[in-house]
């Protein structure tokens, strides 16, 4: 099968959508922009599925190991013989899986938005941005080269910025987009430094070569990067940690998560696409991409584990106390990504040891479906009640039967109840952690109970609880909203049955499915307990939740205020950085740098007018200068400065 015939179309179609809609959308087809964007993506999604089919079932496997195929590669800039920046397209199990996830979820969001965003003034702009985002995300996952991934990484950041700030007349949206951009920028700075260290030491930017060199303990590059150290820590650890910081920024890991809840200011379908299914898992993807290198450097892998597990727990606790439906989902996303991260962190390579790796990506895969389903359903709810707050909702199952059912399905999935997708992937993660680190397992188990609790808290508060009389009756939405919900719900029910280990594993070999009925008893029981607790507290309107939160007092308040992390950041930035660094820097800038610059400008101007006399227009004086120049050069270079 020759991929090169059509494969470039997959990223280029969304780009074409962006260009067409961005340039002409507003003036020529504002109304039909949605259909056009969706059609572009439909083709891209079909091509991705076709690619995945070809890769996984026809020619990806050689001798039982999935190969990494590069059907397209173009050297864009070559710095030297060794280091060049390429633009390429890599096909390996994880990139093909991501291709499918990104185009599929993006397609669902495109369709859903046809209804959700109808009547928006900047309808075509919205679809143009969606196209840009999809293009950048696809470019990111197919990167063959660490610099290429960085460029698309930034592009993804920009399109996320544009989409979060889509309602640019809302100050909170503008502030949120700025926050997201700045926080991830800082993380990206670390990422860039990490890339430079890796590229410089490995003498290549190409993923394949880089991994090969840095995992071969005999190679000169490996010896170089591990023996060189900075503050007593080897350069390899530094580089990988810095790269991970970049990933943690995009994936909203502790303590760089503060932008994600605020990013919910964007349109809800955007949250489903960017902040649930695709962009936020870029960090996981990055670690998975460089996994062999991370694996050889256990120190950096420990950091990944620790940050992942801390984020999972921390976010779950906060999610229990939030009252804004999208914020609960945002923290839940963060928590689930924490799962993926620590699952990578505890994984090994090869055979059974690689279970964590497979489980992590499996969870990424299933999470994409049920989390985007949750967001889209939440979008439908918000559209109906015109509020994000739980207190404005309740008893909605009467008004929106479809949404109710799909939301329930997604909640069961994320809680890890059989037979929904989340069950299978979460079981694998738990099993992997059970086998390698009992403490991580205990925390993960507890978090899993919390997850079930806060998700069903959300479910019962929205669809059961007190009965509310709704005055605005524009119903649940039309087919373009229901179809994606149904499709995603079906995926959520069935995706778990894919024997994922057959296709994606750390070493490319087949990994048998891990499914032990006995092992599953404990996690499922814990989840059921969480659901039961939520049911007791939230199914009917009562005073118990209030009473509990009162009795928890300070603890509840701390969690409600998200452990005051935002305040800590504010304190650090406003009080410490601005006062101790910013003010003096501003003073220096204003009084010294500006002074110098003004001085230079002044001097430049005065020299300029002083020497204009040389340019007199008299040709005899020109000859004189010419001759003087030669004499001066002769004196200087023949006698003085040889």
């Amino acid at each position, binding site marked *: 099968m020759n991929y090169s015939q059509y494969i470039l179309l997959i990223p280029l179609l969304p780009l074409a959508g962006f260009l067409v809609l961005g340039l002409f959308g507003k003036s020529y087809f504002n109304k039909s922009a949605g259909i056009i964007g969706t059609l572009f993506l439909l083709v891209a999604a079909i091509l991705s599925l076709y690619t995945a089919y070809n890769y996984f079932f026809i020619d990806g496997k050689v001798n039982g190991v999935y190969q990494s195929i590069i059907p397209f590669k173009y*050297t864009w800039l070559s710095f030297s013989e060794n280091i060049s920046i390429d633009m390429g397209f890599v096909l390996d199990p994880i990139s093909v899986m991501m291709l499918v996830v990104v185009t599929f979820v993006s397609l669902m969001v495109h369709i859903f938005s046809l209804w959700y965003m109808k009547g928006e003034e900047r309808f075509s702009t919205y679809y143009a941005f969606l196209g840009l985002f999809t293009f950048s995300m696809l470019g990111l996952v197919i990167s063959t080269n660490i610099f290429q991934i960085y460029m698309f990484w930034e592009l993804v950041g920009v399109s996320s910025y544009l989409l979060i700030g889509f309602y640019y007349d809302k100050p909170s949206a503008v502030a949120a987009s700025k926050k997201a951009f700045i926080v991830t920028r800082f993380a990206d700075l670390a990422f860039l430094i990490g890339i430079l260290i890796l590229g410089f030491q490995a003498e290549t930017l190409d993923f394949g070569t880089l991994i090969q060199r840095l995992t071969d303990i005999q190679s000169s590059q490996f010896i170089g990067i591990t023996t060189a150290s900075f503050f007593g820590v080897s350069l390899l650890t530094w580089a990988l940690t810095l790269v991970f910081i970049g990933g943690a920024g995009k994936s909203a890991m502790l303590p760089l998560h503060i932008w994600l809840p605020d990013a919910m200011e964007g349109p809800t379908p955007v949250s489903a696409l960017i902040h649930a299914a695709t962009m936020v898992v870029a960090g996981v993807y990055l670690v998975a991409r460089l996994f062999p290198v991370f694996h050889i450097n256990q120190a950096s892998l420990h950091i990944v584990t620790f940050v992942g597990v801390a984020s999972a727990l921390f976010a779950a606790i906060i999610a229990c106390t939030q009252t804004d439906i999208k914020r609960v989902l945002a923290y839940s996303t963060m928590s689930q990504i924490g799962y993926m991260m620590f699952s990578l962190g505890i994984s090994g390579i090869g055979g059974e040891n690689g279970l964590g790796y497979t489980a992590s990506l499996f969870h990424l895969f299933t999470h994409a479906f049920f989390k985007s389903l949750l967001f889209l359903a939440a979008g439908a709810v918000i559209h109906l009640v015109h509020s994000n707050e739980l207190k404005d909702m309740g008893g909605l199952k009467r008004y929106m039967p479809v949404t109710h059912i799909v939301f329930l399905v997604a909640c069961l999935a994320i809680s890890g109840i059989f037979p929904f997708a989340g069950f299978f992937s979460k079981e694998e993660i738990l099993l992997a952690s059970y086998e390698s680190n009992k403490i991580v397992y205990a925390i993960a188990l507890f978090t899993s109970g919390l997850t079930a609790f806060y998700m069903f808290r959300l479910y019962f508060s929205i669809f059961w609880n007190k009965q509310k009389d709704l005055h605005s009756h524009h119903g649940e939405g039309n087919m373009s909203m229901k179809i994606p919900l149904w499709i995603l719900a079906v995926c959520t029910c069935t995706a778990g049955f894919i024997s994922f280990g057959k296709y994606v594993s750390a070493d490319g070999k087949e990994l048998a499915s891990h499914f032990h009925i006995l092992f599953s008893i404990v996690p499922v029981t814990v989840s059921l307990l969480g659901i039961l607790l939520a049911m007791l507290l939230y199914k009917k309107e009562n005073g118990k939740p209030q009473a509990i939160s009162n009795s928890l007092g300070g603890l509840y308040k701390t969690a409600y205020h998200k452990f005051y992390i935002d305040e800590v950041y504010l304190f650090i930035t406003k009080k410490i950085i601005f006062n101790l660094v910013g003010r003096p820097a501003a003073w220096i800038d204003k009084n010294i740098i500006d002074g110098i610059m003004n001085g230079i400008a002044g001097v*430049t101007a005065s020299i*300029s007018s002083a*020497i204009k006399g040389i340019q007199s227009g008299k040709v005899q004086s020109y*000859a004189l200068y*010419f001759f003087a120049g*030669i004499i001066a050069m002769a004196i200087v*270079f*023949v*006698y003085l400065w040889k």
Partner: protein
Amino acid sequence: MLADFFILMKAELVITLLIFTLLFLKIGNKEWRNESLLNIINLLLFINLLSGFFIAKEGTLFGDMFRTNELLRFEKNMLNLGILIISLQSYHWLKQHKHVPEFYMLLLSTLLGMFFMISANNILMFYLALELSTIPLAALCNFDLHKKIASEAAFKMSISSAFSSGLLLFGISLLYGTTGSLNFAEISSQLNGSPLQLFSFILLLSGFTFKISAVPFHLWTADVYEGSPVAVTSYLSVISKAAILFVLVSVLYNVFQPLGSNWYNMLFVLSVLTMIIGNLFALRQQNMKRFLAFSSIAQVGFILIGITGQSAEGSASVIYFVLVYLFSNLGAFGVVALVSSLAGKENIDDYKGFYTHNKLLSWVLAISLFSLAGIPPTAGFFGKFFLLLAGAAKGNYILITIAALNMVISLYYYLRIIKAMFMDENKNPVEKINAGLQPKLALAICMIGIIVTGLISGAYNYIYSLVK
């Protein structure tokens, strides 16, 4: 053997043929309309450009006097392209001119000189070719026959050139005296760095730097550029400089390599002086042509940095930059030529509000200036970047710092023009200019060149492979 002769000298022979064709056109009885004459000539120049890409061979002729190879052929093709662009751009000006064939005869004669100069393998051959490329240029400067300022330009051009040629010839004779040879390869083997040789080298270098108008040998530039017709000015500042730069790089790298450390210092000083003085003068110019003249002096300063790299990268980066510079500068001159010949305006103040009636031309000029200023993603950025990279390889960070500062200064004056065009208000902005097919074609070539040579690294890689 005879076939070899024709193939090796193909570029020169085609030009010679063109010159004779023009001569017969002129002395024939038929009265040609200028429009049709220009169309024919442009077509011939296009054929000339195409002919450069076919049938090539490497080798030497006339007892090692003349050599050619892939790189030289590429350089000649660049010049052919440049002359085609200039010819297309000067369509409006030449349409009203009485002496079209003469103009082209002179122009092609200088081009012929440059071709021989590029191919010269012997210092005497080089000198003759240099003269052949200079003397007709002085006549060309005077081609606005009724303008006094043009006569002044021509006069200054010939006096200055004569002066510089005299010193150059003096240098050559000293070199001959100390090395006993005129052949480049033999000269190279005889160099030992004695004071006399150094002095003769300085004289030689002054001859080169006079042509590329490096400070302090640049003073003729501004007056000549201002007085000459725009077509000639762009020819002087692009084609003529490009040819000399090619020769300079090749002579310094191949012949004077034994004196490498000496000329490194010289180029360092010249480059710093050229950048700074060129920029300082460019800052205060009011006439568009004069402004471009000084800015091109500053550009030469940057090119000298690339030459100090003394490596294959250095040589490749210079040739690449010249290619980029050809597109960018001719793009800018193309617009200036249109405004000058169709609206009769040449001052920067006249460009205020240029965008109101001439949107496309404003963008063309803006992109060209962006490229000259070295703003990504135009080709100029990559050009400067590679020059600095080549220079930085020698580890002279003082030079790089000064270059970076000068890039900022140059940014200021390039942006000044862009600001004038797009932002400044003007009660009587330049009316809508109807450019016509030929100039539009020329500008399109320049724009494509700026974008393509920048975004596609193939150009640089190709040059690099030729140099290696």
